[in-house]
């Protein structure tokens, strides 16, 4: 399967990032000092129990949220220094997201959902091409309600990659799918990584999925517990759960 990226160019770096949620007098430390680097073209799997801080970290990496303290660097750009408009521009230009519940616009067809992004991107691929990559060339004009869960998730992936993002962030992309459908979704992600060199960070509860990654980051209590290098990632088809 995909070889580990040869030259390890850092693309996203966090330095001692913390995130504290306050609700009334209660303070929840979702992240308690995370320092991490994501390298260009690698696939990273974030593993950890619920509440370990995976999603919070992913949201901060993707510019959906700001840390309470610490720094997040995208190449030479300090994301923590950006306001709402700056973060929007960052997401718009560089990041693709895939969520557990797809987040497709129900009133738009598969093609239109992808076009939503290509219309505002600088050098996008055609929506048809993006959908073809995830194996949905035949379902272009279907509305989300006419697609299966796996198909909807693949539309979401097509939508995420159509702008050729440098970073693809996936939060439990297979969480709502059965094993077989999950594998097809993972295959789509791996193919995109291979063909486009997109740095992909993937959150999962499912320990088996770690096998497709170049690196596995284990999180616990808002910290990185340990990092595992995987020299020979497996193809998604070889994984099952």
């Amino acid at each position: 399967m995909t070889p580990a990226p040869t030259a390890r160019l850092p693309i996203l770096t966090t330095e001692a990032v913390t995130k504290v949620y306050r609700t009334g007098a209660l303070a929840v430390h979702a992240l308690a000092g995370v320092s991490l680097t994501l390298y260009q073209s690698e696939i990273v799997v974030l593993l950890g129990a619920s509440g370990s801080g995976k999603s919070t970290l992913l949201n901060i990496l993707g510019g959906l949220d700001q840390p309470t303290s610490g720094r997040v660097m995208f190449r030479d750009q300090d994301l923590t220094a950006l306001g709402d408009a700056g973060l929007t521009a960052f997401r718009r230009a560089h990041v693709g997201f895939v969520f557990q519940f797809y987040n497709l616009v129900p009133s738009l067809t598969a093609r239109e959902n992808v076009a939503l992004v290509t219309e505002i991107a600088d050098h996008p691929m055609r929506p048809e091409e993006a959908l073809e990559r995830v194996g949905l060339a035949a379902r272009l004009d279907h509305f989300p309600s006419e697609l299966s869960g796996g198909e909807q998730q693949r539309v979401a992936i097509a939508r995420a990659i159509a702008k050729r993002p440098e970073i693809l962030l996936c939060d439990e992309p297979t969480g709502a799918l059965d094993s077989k459908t999950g594998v097809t979704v993972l295959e789509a992600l791996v193919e995109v990584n291979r063909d486009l060199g997109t740095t992909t960070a993937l959150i999962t509860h499912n320990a088996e999925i770690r096998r497709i990654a170049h690196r596995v980051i284990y999180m616990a209590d808002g910290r990185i517990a340990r990092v595992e290098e995987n020299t020979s990632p497996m193809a998604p088809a070889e994984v099952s759960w």
Partner: protein
Amino acid sequence: MRALDRKVLRDLRTIWAQALAIALVLACGVMVLVLSTGTQRSLTETRDAYYERHRFADVFASATRAPLGLLPRIAAIDGVAQVEARIVFTAMLDLEGMAEPASARVISLPALGEPALNLPLLRSGRLPDPLQPDEVALSEPFAQANGLQPGDRFRAVLNGRLRTLVVTGHLLSPEYIYTIGPGAMMPDDTHFGLIWMREPAAAAASDLDGAFNDLTLSLSRGAHTESVIAELDRILAPYGGTGAHGRDRQMSHVFIEGELTQLGAMARVLPPVFLIVSAFLVNMVLGRLIALERQQIGLFKAIGYATAEIVLHYLKMTIGIGVLGVLIGWGMGWWLGHAMTTLYTEYFRFPWLDYRPGAAPLVVSGLLALAAVVIGAVRAVAAAVRLAPAVAMSPPAPPVFRRGWVGDLGAALALRQTTMMILRSLSRWPGRAAVTLFGVAGSVAVLVASFVTFDIIDVVMEDIFDKANRQDATLLLHRAVGERAELDALSLPGVLLAEGVYAVPIRLGHGSRSKLVSLMARDPAARLTRVLDDDGRPIPLPDSGVTLPEALADDLGLRLGDRVRIELLAPPRAPWDVTVTGIIRQSMGQDVQMNRSALFALMNEAPQVNMLNLAIDMASLSALQAQIKETPAAAGFTLWADVRGAMEATMNESLITMTLIFSALGMLITIGVVYNAARIQLAERAHELASLRVLGFRRSEVGYVLVAEQMLLTVVAVPVGWVAGYGFARLMTQGFSTDIISLPLMISQATYAQSALTVLAAALASVLLVRRRLDRIDIVTALKQKE
């Protein structure tokens, strides 16, 4: 408190802004009802009580000179209860400190005691002493406007003789609740008043000893007014009777009736719009709430609540909104009713006039309002409670979208996907779009119907003052004189041009229909006064035949070329059949116009005039006024600039205020509808819109989805509203037109544009208010919720 009732209160608190928006629209309907029907009722009851207590007459007649010996014959007419003969004439006044002449109507009081009919109300001082011929009582508004207190003196020209009169008291009369001078269009308390004088003095001043020239009658219950009038006309004809009439032609009464008609029109046209829009709004908002609470409804049913209890639960919520709207509407209606009634006291001189709407307007408006919201709610509730508990508890099926025309249109026009989202939403929920569309259209319509007031004022003012009447002043003469008066008038100071008119009361008849009106006979070549065609263009007065205002022609069923019967109510009184040769646009009054030479040819007499229209060199105005004060032939002098000023002042005071209030009401509909639609849109699409933010859409781009959908509906609604507004304006002008005023329906492009712009601005402000909430949505939280 039961748990479900607690839920009602909490739910209302959650949707307070939307509930308030609906309540305000509802309140507008209630307000207009309470205002118009309450004011109508106050005015009617006050008038009726005043008429009753002060014995307002039923029939009125005047003659040139009738012997008192006729009275027993008149009293013997079947149906006549009481007869009062009077002497009434016009006098010119010379008031201290006033350059221009004022005029007054002198009315006789019986030699002793009080009149049997039209009993004046003594407001201060006393009635004149029968033994003091110089003592007079004045109408209170005139006395107040000129600072004339009991004991004060002023000079008057009575029948050509200059006299000094002494004021003994101030009076009000049921006959002059609304007082308008001869030839005037508006009340002018400074320049026109009423003078009550004891009969011997009045008879001496007008050479009517042993005679009368004015008669009022009261009728017994069940009397036939028309036959009394006919008999009276027969008796008075030899004595210059000018046609008896009932209260329906009595000036003051007619104006009050006109006002009542207008209040009625207001009550009929406007409230239904607000009530219907409220019903739709309740349906929309409650429908959304129930959709959200679908699973809860299933749960209530599962744990054993009966369907009726659940229905009642949601109806309670609706009634909560309804009660709020009714209370606000009552409060506003009461307050405005007070203000309007106070305004009326400036024009209608009642001894008392309080806003006492009684319970009926409150009860009726309250019930109608509650009915409107309950009807709106029933449909929304019914759909939800019919579901079986198990079905209700499971989430609703996701909305189904179809490719259809929207997809084709999008592809053809290469529309952006955010625009596609808007179009699909509209085609998926056409009912909701229709509510917004018709609500906004209603708003535009109400605005067109209120802004049109300004157009109509413009047209009427321009017609009256710039096109039809270009004279600077009108001089009324005591009696008709030869045409030489036109030349004589030129010798008065500053008079540049004088054009005579012969004004005479006539009965105009066609088939079984007839009407008492004034005939204005003048020279077709007149330059100062002109008649206007349908488009407001001056047209020459035809050489022969009569020219009628459109409204009068309609009343009598007359068309161009028809023969019409005119009966002069002054000598020689003979009836003639003449041809209708012109039908014209005339907003004020129902005067019939005719070529003077043609009329006098029919009469077989040399042409005469009894009023003169003058063009004046304004520099010599004061000299002219001074001279007229001492001219015995003059019976009244009106400066048209004053008339115009008075009219404009009235418009500014009442009409513009009312128009602004109605414009605010019109805007409220848009705000209520658009705000609610946008809130629902936002609630249902929070997730979707948050997704767009994640994808890198800017706030403005996401806001577009919300704002553009509402604005698109608003833009589409505007032309619909224009059409409806035309209909509304038509209804309003018809409802507001009376015998005295016939309003032309003229809607300017500016009115259409302003109503559209106002509504667009109101819609944009409402939707931007909701858009601000979009900024507060936490993207991360919104995404965690499953669709």
